[in-house]
């Protein structure tokens, strides 16, 4: 309960801050985009699987929106988001069928390899993807209404926050279900899971598809707020950033990746203004502090507070 109240308070702060600093609205929408994708990465991290290729699904979500907008003329927010989730889920299913057989470094590297193939295709298939020029995305209509850019960005921020809440609850319930609790069990004792009669590949495939859907939703939000997408979205540095966000934020709770994304994007935004050359150092130092003092990430801070609160 205390935990939920803290999350609510953080969400309220998240919603209020852009009202006082309007330039942060854009940054915070990107936070949500990265947060969704990093939550996907975090689900796999629970099973001890590090994907250094989830930017592929981020890009699939973004390009689904891009195709619908610039090629198919479907400029409707909700259908674009749903399509991004479905298409990235299908990619996750096909790629996942292959990935769930691998563990450890093989899983990490194969995800990296597949994402780099995706990056190359996005770059080279000029007529289809616009190559390195990318695609532009028009402001879509929302529930049948034409909205101005400013209103649309507000809708994206607050609608995205609401979506993050709903998705967060669904993912939280999943992680507490038998299939979700089996994820850390895959890491700690896969043999015993098999000896309980549980098909581990099926457990992992479900997680993989879910993580791809989350990354795809994130990519769609990214495409919509930035209004322009390039193959860099699928580049391995984007994947690395998603892992970084998940670890910084912590995988102990669904809020973790969103907290990590807030930290990362805020520091980056501040650094652009105040210390353009130092932002990597700041992020690196932040990561070191987290690794040494907060092994469960920034979310671990909440866990500490709530555990104190629960003690009689």
């Amino acid at each position: 309960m205390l935990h939920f109240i803290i999350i609510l308070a953080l969400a309220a702060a998240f919603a209020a801050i852009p009202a006082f600093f309007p330039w942060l609205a854009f940054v915070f929408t990107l936070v949500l985009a990265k947060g969704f994708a990093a939550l996907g990465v975090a689900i796999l991290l629970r099973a001890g699987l590090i994907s250094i290729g989830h930017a592929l699904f981020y890009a699939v979500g973004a390009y689904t929106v891009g195709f619908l907008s610039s090629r198919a003329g479907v400029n409707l927010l909700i259908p674009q988001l749903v399509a991004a989730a479905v298409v990235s889920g299908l990619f996750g299913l096909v790629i996942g069928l292959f990935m769930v057989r691998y563990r450890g470094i093989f899983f990490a590297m194969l995800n990296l390899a597949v994402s780099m193939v995706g990056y190359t295709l996005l770059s080279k298939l000029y007529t289809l993807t616009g190559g390195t020029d990318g695609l532009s995305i028009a402001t879509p209509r929302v529930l049948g209404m034409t909205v101005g850019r400013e209103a649309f960005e507000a809708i994206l921020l607050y609608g995205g926050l609401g979506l993050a809440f709903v998705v967060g609850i669904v993912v939280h319930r999943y992680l507490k279900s038998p299939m979700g609790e089996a994820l850390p069990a895959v890491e700690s004792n896969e043999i015993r899971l098999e000896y309980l009669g549980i098909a581990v590949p099926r457990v992992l495939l479900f997680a993989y598809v879910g993580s791809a859907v989350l990354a795809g939703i994130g990519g769609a939000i990214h495409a919509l707020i930035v209004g322009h997408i390039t193959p860099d979205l699928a580049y391995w540095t984007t994947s690395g950033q998603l892992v970084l966000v998940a670890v910084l934020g912590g995988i102990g709770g669904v809020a973790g990746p969103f907290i990590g994304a807030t930290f990362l994007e805020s520091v980056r935004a501040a650094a652009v203004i105040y210390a353009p050359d130092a932002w990597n150092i700041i992020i690196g130092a932040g990561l070191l502090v987290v690794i040494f003092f907060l092994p469960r990430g920034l979310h671990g801070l909440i866990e500490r507070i709530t555990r104190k609160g629960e003690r009689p």
Partner: protein
Amino acid sequence: MSAPLLSVRGVRVAFGGVKAADGVDLDVNAGEFLAIIGPNGSGKTTFINLATGYVKPQAGTIRLEGRDITSARPRDVTKLGIARAFQIPQLFTEHTVLENLMLAVAANQGFWRWQSPLGSPAVREAAMDLLTTVGLADMVGASSNALNEGARKLTDIALALALKPRLLLLDEPTAGVSTDEKFPLMDRLAAVLRERGVTAVFVEHDMDLVRRYADRVVVWNQGRVVADGAPDAVLTDPAVLRDVVGVL
């Protein structure tokens, strides 16, 4: 006589030059408690690995009630009603003892759910019952990697029991369990197994336990069965005493 529950014929497997199973023939009959004894490295654990599909034999067949399970995977064999406990306990070390058990109970009844909690009241109750059976009721909240070896063994056995198997394979169930706990544990275990009509195979080094709980004893040496019969007969056989019991 009815067909055996488990029937193993001519099974061979070698690791490098080591013949861990060198033509094993063995029938396990429904309802019996079968003890396997034999020196370390004689292939007792390998037999359990073979029977559960963890190790694939290079020759021979394994049947469960006539059904060929020679090339089945552990999860298939598990679904057919064979459960095992491990010589070295295999637990979910990131979960508490109760969560370990709840995973096992859920595995057996409605695992593929993703929006209802693992710890439903029914699952929780079944898990508690199992922990009570093995005498770990006061350990529920403990992290499973904080347990001592004996408690880890008991948790491992409870995980196998949770599957409600027809055939339970126990690899040295009392190793690591303190001396004065061995008999009470086996008493409770045997009572539960008899009550549920479970057939049990247990690898055991303690001859007092074998005499007390086994209906039949099979002696392993160098990857083969070298003696098979009632405990009284086998455990007084001079060759067995010299080659096997003497070196345990």
